[in-house]
């Protein structure tokens, strides 16, 4: 049977078009129930004994949620208890229309066999299709369609020949109108479920409940409707931007407005009213305030930590603090949020603040991310959840509520436990860390994997070369190997062999997409989140010793002065002769008694590397410094038992030099071949103002730093020495590192500035770590296409798609660094937890208005010593911006001053445990603390080990 669906729509040019679609109805759509004997279905989804024990519906039943239930209560539907659910096509379509993430989750549930979710295509069923009637809105029509389908199901199941089994279909809805027509409300239904009390918590708060929760007083101005916002943005009276809450002050935020091209502005938003229920990362519309109301960002740290404040009571008080600090001078454009264009809510990790009132079911939830406001949730299991890390989703933020309303999603485990904390930091940094899906794994080569003669025909056989790899200890994803040999003409042949990952990951398949999304492998302390499945990363692609592996080789002919005479690239097969650690390689080079091929090769490489490094430094490459720590992890408890700063050996820089050379050679080649779509990496020169702090700091020690060019900076850093202060140079370099910009990936067709400032190279890319970076895979593909070893594909040559990919890679890269840092910080805390209070020597790295930041070289640890604590009378503080110096009582702190501090773990706030430092030397009365007596003997032994 044929029906037609007619609707009118507006075309892009402003016209109006009538669209008519043919709609076929059929009579061979089956009900999907196991009981049914009439439907000629091949397999059934819905079970015969569909029992969810419920007080409300004591008979076996199937559930039919309506659209709003699916949209708002997807967390409940995901629970394993909820089974035998019929998802109507009407509902599915509406959900897809209204929320892509929920749609995806719903599809996932439907695919899960154990859940017994059945999609019924009621829109194409002859008996359940209905046409929209005059005067009926689209929503009403859909509601009617749902009711008709439910009715049909009930009739269908009742008139079975096999006799009615008492099976019924229950419509779950939140809609009053629907309810009056005799259906169940989701809230009541869930509450009626026996033995599943925790499910109630997952219920999202619906609109009608909110009045009970909050006082009826309106706290926030109404958000403007989208149409008005759009009109306002068009006319320029509103600005659209991303809302970024301040980490330190919950009453302050900036909205980042992307202007045309490069210029973008930041608008300051201050005060609860003006923030108007925006949450970090939302896209909002902002209206600028008149200039006389502009303020300057306050430098006060304000945390919203009152316990469950009553709405609006001390609002004025809170904001008074802000007003005071608004100095006349540094005023910034200030505005207020008038509407939300797009919410960017995700489930947030955090902890529950249990309400002081016993038996209360409403509690506040404090997210781990300080930029997210606290969320009010309803739960009956507060006692169990206290002390656990949980995830909470925001449902809405009514204008008469101080906090947004949300609901409990799931528990991650007890706070402070390693597994839980790791999970939290992965989630908070948006690191995809689920196990690889079956679809992804299906693209892996079948084991046992062997090299076929066809493979050999296409590749150069380099198995006879003395190739070896040098990596940090414990490395299983070896993606580079080297060789060096003398040629007959006296020149040297140097080869860098990189794992040929692009041979295994073909463009466009699920494996490729997953890797592109992950972007990079994330290394946490004692844990690695792989970008590609382990079979590739640790086996087939890893260039382990004494196995034949595919490689992409970059081979130079060099003379003894390390001048490159010839460069060629080839896909190859290699057989690494040894996998060495940096230390092992160093020992071989230093051990004069060894003269085997590997050692000779290493010595050759080392010699060349030294020359290359010298040349590079002469060109103005920067040698910067940052302290990296390594934890010694207990093999059983996986707790850190010791930590030490990483030391660098000659061999480290040897490998690094050749990797740089390979990257530069490849960058030149692919840019030459594909000037429009080469994926490169650049490091922009920082603006001179970035160096202010470095220059000031150096000046205080009578050292001058030149920043006119990278070369000048490198030279002045080299000569910067202070007698009797050996660590000074390292400290300066650490400071210089902080002045730098982020290096980023970009597509050569979309940018004109290619310069890599830090390496002083006009062009650079990443080629040498395809196992752990996706950018390298793309570069491999480009290079393979350039030497005609592989074919290209459309996306590779599309500069806009490449550019979009770069954006993702840069984001993932940044996030992985943050995650890494967070992981180190967490392990540092674990380490100090068992150490008690330590007394250590450190240097002042920065001087702030009310604090100094101290670096402890021994642990590579940075911490803040505050001078104004809340409970004490603050000492007299005089801050001089020029120095910068801080005078505390009689003592003046300069940058680079040597101090002694105690280190302890402050776990007063379990969610934000931090390292607390307190001054012991120099001794300032009432400020410094006495040094701890002597460290406990047992602990000390462990340390010295």
């Amino acid at each position, binding site marked *: 049977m044929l029906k*037609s669906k*007619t*609707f*009118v*729509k*507006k075309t892009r040019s*402003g*016209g*109006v078009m*009538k*669209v*008519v679609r043919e709609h076929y109805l059929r009579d061979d759509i089956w009900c999907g129930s196991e009981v049914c004997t009439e439907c000629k279905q091949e397999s059934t989804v819905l079970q015969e004994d569909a029992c969810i024990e419920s007080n409300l519906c004591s008979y076996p039943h199937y559930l039919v949620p309506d659209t709003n239930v699916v949209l708002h209560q997807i967390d409940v539907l995901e629970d394993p208890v909820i089974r035998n659910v019929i998802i109507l096509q009407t509902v599915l379509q509406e959900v897809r229309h209204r929320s892509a993430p929920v749609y995806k989750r719903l599809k996932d549930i439907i695919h899960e066999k154990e859940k017994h979710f059945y999609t019924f295509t009621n829109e194409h069923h002859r008996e359940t299709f209905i*046409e*929209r*009637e*005059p*005067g009926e*809105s*689209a929503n009403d029509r859909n509601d009617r369609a749902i009711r008709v389908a439910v009715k049909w199901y009930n009739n269908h199941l009742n008139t079975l020949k096999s006799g009615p089994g008492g099976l019924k279909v229950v419509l779950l809805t939140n809609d009053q109108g629907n309810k009056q027509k005799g259906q169940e409300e989701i809230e009541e239904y869930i509450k009626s479920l026996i033995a599943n009390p925790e499910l109630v918590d997952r219920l999202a708060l619906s609109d009608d409940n909110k009045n009970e929760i909050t006082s009826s007083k309106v706290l926030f101005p109404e958000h403007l409707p989208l*149409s008005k916002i759009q*009109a306002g943005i*068009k*006319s320029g*009276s509103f600005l659209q931007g991303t809302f970024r809450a301040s980490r330190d002050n919950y009453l302050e935020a900036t909205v980042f407005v992307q202007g045309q091209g490069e210029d973008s502005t930041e608008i300051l938003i201050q005060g609860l009213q003006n923030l108007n229920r925006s949450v970090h990362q939302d896209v909002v519309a902002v209206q600028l305030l008149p200039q006389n109301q502009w303020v300057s960002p306050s430098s006060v740290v304000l945390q919203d930590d009152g316990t469950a404040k009553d709405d609006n009571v001390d609002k004025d008080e809170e904001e008074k603090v802000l007003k005071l600090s608004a100095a006349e001078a540094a005023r910034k454009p200030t505005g207020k949020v008038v509407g939300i264009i797009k919410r960017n809510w995700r489930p947030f990790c955090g902890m529950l603040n249990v309400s002081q009132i016993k038996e209360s079911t409403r509690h506040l939830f404090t997210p781990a991310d300080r930029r997210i406001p606290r969320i009010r949730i309803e739960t009956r299991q507060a006692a169990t959840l206290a002390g656990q890390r949980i995830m909470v989703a925001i449902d809405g933020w009514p204008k008469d509520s101080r906090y947004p309303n949300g609901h409990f999603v799931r528990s991650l485990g007890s706070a402070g436990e390693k597994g839980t904390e790791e999970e939290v930091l992965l989630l908070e940094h948006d690191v995809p860390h689920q196990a690889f899906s079956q679809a992804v794994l299906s693209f892996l080569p079948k084991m046992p994997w062997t090299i076929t003669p066809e493979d050999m025909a296409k590749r150069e056989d380099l198995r006879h070369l003395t190739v070896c790899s040098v990596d940090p200890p414990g490395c299983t994803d070896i993606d580079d190997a080297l060789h060096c040999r003398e040629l007959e003409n006296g020149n040297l042949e140097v080869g860098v062999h990189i794992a040929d990952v692009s041979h295994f990951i073909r463009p466009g398949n699920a494996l490729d997409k997953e890797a592109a999304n992950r972007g990079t492998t994330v290394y946490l302390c004692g844990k690695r989140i792989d970008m590609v499945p382990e079979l590739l990363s640790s086996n087939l692609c890893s260039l382990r010793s004494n196995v034949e592996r595919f490689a992409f080789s970059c081979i130079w002919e060099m003379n003894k002065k390390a001048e490159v005479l010839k460069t060629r690239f080839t896909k190859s097969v290699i057989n690494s002769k040894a996998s060495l650690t940096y230390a092992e390689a160093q020992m071989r080079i230093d051990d004069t008694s060894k003269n085997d091929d590997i050692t000779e090769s290493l010595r050759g490489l080392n010699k060349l590397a030294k020359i290359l490094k010298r040349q590079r430094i002469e060109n103005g490459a920067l040698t910067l410094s940052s302290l990296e720590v390594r934890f010694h992890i207990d093999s059983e408890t996986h707790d850190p038992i010791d930590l030490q700063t990483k030391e660098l050996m000659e061999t480290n820089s040897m490998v690094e030099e050749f990797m740089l050379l390979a990257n530069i050679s490849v960058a030149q080649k692919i840019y030459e071949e594909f000037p429009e779509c080469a994926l490169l990496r650049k490091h922009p020169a920082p603006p001179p103002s970035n160096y202010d702090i470095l220059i000031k700091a150096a000046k205080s020690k009578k050292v001058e730093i030149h920043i006119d060019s990278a070369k000048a900076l490198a030279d002045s850093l080299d000569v910067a020495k202070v007698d009797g202060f050996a660590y000074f140079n390292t400290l300066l370099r650490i400071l210089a590192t902080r002045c730098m910009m982020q290096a980023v990936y970009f597509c050569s067709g979309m940018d004109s500035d290619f310069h890599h400032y830090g390496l002083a190279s006009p062009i650079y890319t990443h080629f040498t770590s395809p196992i752990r970076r996706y950018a390298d895979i793309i570069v491999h593909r480009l290079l393979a296409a350039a030497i005609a070893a592989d074919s290209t594909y459309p996306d590779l040559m599309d500069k806009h798609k490449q550019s979009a990919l770069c954006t993702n890679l840069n984001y993932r890269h940044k996030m992985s660094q943050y995650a890494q840092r967070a992981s180190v910080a967490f392990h540092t805390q674990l380490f100090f937890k068992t150490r008690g209070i330590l007394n250590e020597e450190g240097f002042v790295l920065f001087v702030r208005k009310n604090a100094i930041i101290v670096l402890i070289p021994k642990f590579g640890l940075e911490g803040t010593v505050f001078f104004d604590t809340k409970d004490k009378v603050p000492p007299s503080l005089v801050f001089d911006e020029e120095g910068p110096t801080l005078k505390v009582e009689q003592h003046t702190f300069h940058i680079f001053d040597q101090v002694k501090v105690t280190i302890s773990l402050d776990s007063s706030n379990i969610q934000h445990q931090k390292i607390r430092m307190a001054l012991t030397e120099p001794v300032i009365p009432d400020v410094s603390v006495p040094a701890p007596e002597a460290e406990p003997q047992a602990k000390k032994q462990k340390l010295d080990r």
Partner: protein
Amino acid sequence: MATVQVSEAEKVYILHGIRDDLRVDGRGCEDYRHMEIETDVVSNTDGSAKVTLGHTAVLVGIKAEIGKPRPMVPNEGYLEFFVDCSANATPEFEGRGGEELGTELSNTLYRVFNNKHSLDLRSLCISPGEHCWVLYVDVLLLQCDGNLYDAMSVAIKAALFNTKIPRVNISSDDEGGKEIELSDDPFDCMRLDVENVPCIVTLCKVGHRHVVDATLQEKACSVASLLISVTHKGAVTCARKVGGGSLDPESVFEMTEAGKRVGKALHAPLMALLRQEESLGMKRHKVGFLG
């Protein structure tokens, strides 16, 4: 125009018959052949009608699109006509054979219908000088058996009656920019007032008398014919002579009078029929093209 060959003897027979007010198919001189009308036959138009008159069959589809008003009349919409002489109708139309006729027909239709006396063109205006509805009237000749004009005019009137134009609102922001907003209810639409839309009556001079709704044979016997468009009140809005022969003033006067009479008689049952069909609503059983 599609023609048939008629022998002298046949001509005399037809002529004599008409003289005695008895036509070959048994009709009187002012009688129409059997007529069938169905509206809303093409779903992807905004209004459509199919009319068969004897063996003549025409299909009219109307599409409403947003356009810019003509500069001379900024507060009026307008109609555009296109007549497609399909080769289905007669083999002569094959290739570009029907083009000339098509142009002639559409020009005539434009003259007859596109004026504010026959249709309230102001109601088609959305915002003066900027947006108005343009009604594209597409006429498709499915079969030619004489008297195309009358059949087309009836079909156009029926299609205009059937036309549903989506209702639009103009929202303006403070800067003066205007945006067209569309109601999301497909049943929320504007109807046209077709009360004053005229019908064309073609009178063929055969011998000393004249006939309406001439068949192809009768047409072959006639030297000239007169098109008169008549409103339901009997007002003549347009008259045009077609054919090679000449008409004396007296017979022009007579024919006009007859045309008024016939036209008035045609309107009343037509409107009744259309209203009756409309009142059936969605329950109406559609006949379509295969019925």
